[in-house]
């Protein structure tokens, strides 16, 4: 955007950031200070973090949350990228329908969705934790769909596909080796938000009686408050780091880099 204009000191921006920063960081830093207290010695230390990491459940739940989030991301990409590519290429009449469907989860409060999910699925679905990635997929669908849709809109999809196809690539290769790299900005954004949403999902998970990292924090809070605060801090920092890494991987506007 504002290329060429050297960034100089901006009082309104500085004030905005100061106020926002105050509101965001005061609670965060206060909680952090609690989490490094050591009541026995009266000083500070990483006791609670070490305690948390040494708990068997810590790795059990964090790994579980991670792989559930990973599966959600895979479902999202495997289902949405080919479907959206096809929708963009064909002039199918179902496009309007699917566009509308993809936004519908925004309308439904998660609590209501949880009630519906609890009374609907057959036993074999309710008995496996694998129901969660599919439900997370639904929750992330409006965002993931829109992000990929924008990416596909911004490229000459038809030309690219025809070129790849006439060079002998099959559909699978066209999508994985050509389309996905070209829209990698949108793909990365989709991965980031789907992953973050799945990792932090609490309402649906707890109402369907599953245990993941976010619900475990609640459980720990019942007998070790400071430990639970330490875990909470980690539950904020981990998605932040993951998202930062993912977004830093993609140079900004990489998809327009090909001019």
């Amino acid at each position, binding site marked *: 955007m504002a290329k060429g204009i050297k960034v100089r000191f901006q009082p309104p921006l500085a004030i905005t950031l100061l106020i926002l920063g105050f509101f965001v960081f005061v609670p965060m830093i206060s909680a952090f200070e609690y989490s490094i207290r050591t009541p026995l010695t009266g000083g500070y230390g990483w006791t609670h973090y070490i305690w948390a990491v040494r708990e068997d459940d810590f790795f059990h739940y964090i790994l579980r949350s991670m792989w559930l989030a990973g599966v959600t991301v895979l479902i999202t990409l495997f289902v949405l990228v080919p479907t959206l590519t096809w929708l963009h290429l064909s002039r199918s009449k179902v496009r309007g329908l699917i566009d509308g469907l993809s936004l519908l989860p925004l309308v439904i409060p998660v609590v209501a969705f949880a009630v*519906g*999910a609890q*009374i609907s699925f057959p036993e074999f679905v309710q008995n496996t934790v694998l129901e969660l990635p599919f439900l997370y997929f639904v929750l992330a669908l409006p965002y993931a769909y829109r992000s990929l849709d924008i990416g596909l809109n911004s490229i000459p999809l038809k030309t690219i596909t025809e070129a790849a196809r006439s060079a002998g690539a099959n559909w699978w290769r066209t999508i994985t080796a050509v389309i996905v790299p070209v829209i990698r900005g949108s793909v990365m954004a989709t991965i980031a938000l789907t992953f973050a949403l799945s990792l932090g999902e609490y309402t649906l998970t707890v109402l369907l009686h599953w245990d993941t990292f976010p619900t475990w924090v*609640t459980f720990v809070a019942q007998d070790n408050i400071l430990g639970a605060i330490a875990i909470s801090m980690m539950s904020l920092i981990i998605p932040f780091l993951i*998202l930062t890494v993912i977004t830093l991987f993609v140079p900004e506007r990489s998809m327009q880099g090909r001019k």
Partner: protein
Amino acid sequence: MTSQVIEGGAPSRGRAFLASFIKNILPAVPLLLIVGFFFLFPIARLIYVSFLSNENTFTIDNFKTAVQEPYRTGFLNSIKIGVFSAAIAAFPGAVAAYFIETRGSSKLRRTIAVMSGVLANTGGVPLAFMFYAALGIQGYLTKFLKYLGWDLYAGTFSLGSFIGLLIVYLYFQLPLMVIVFSPAIVSLRREWSEAARNLGASQFSYWIRIGIPLLFPSFIASFLLLFASGFSAYATANALTVGNLPLTPLQIGGLLDGNVSAAQLNLGKALGVVMIVISACAVIPYLAIQRRSAKWQKG
């Protein structure tokens, strides 16, 4: 198959139907199946069951109970917290989004985007801890304010009260406003402000005649989405309140867990359906406005 639309005569109707099915619908089947089974089916069933009595006969009694006390207060409180948290967050969030998008460097904008994404998703116990640490009875901000002569806890304030919860909700509502309102700002072209100035408009008249009218629909849309977010938030309310503040999501959660029993087994489903209706009243206009403004934002 390439992308050309083949519009030839088909040999027979059955074959033609099959061909058109393969061409027009088949690739969408995986998505439709997942969304159908994991989303539409549960919602349809929720609506169906909400009309069933304990003996599985048709009834609207669940809804009659759902609009009586204590559920009535639950709805009123939930709507109130949705409206207030959205109203308080909307304007500062929009101004923040404006300064960040127009004055911030690319690095800053990306950092803020990531942070807003994380913060808009905070909630539940971690968020409750942060506010206990800052604004709880022993919180740092509380002590600081007391030092300045303002005792927060002199009256009836607590983080589990309506006001307390409202403050906590702002923690995810403000970043959400920044996220949903930023695209509208990005689409405000620099050329327009320059053109207006060249034609002699002052900064003030640019805002009154161009800036605000252009941004207003997106602002209202963002407000509606924030309302829906505050209205249906569950995790944070669950972590902070101890049954002292009736809110619909908590009442549904209680019925679902069996912590609260009601004479009508399907009351929770009816509450869920009413929630969907209220939320739809906000989200559907939001989507309609978004769609309209997407047209000129792209062009």
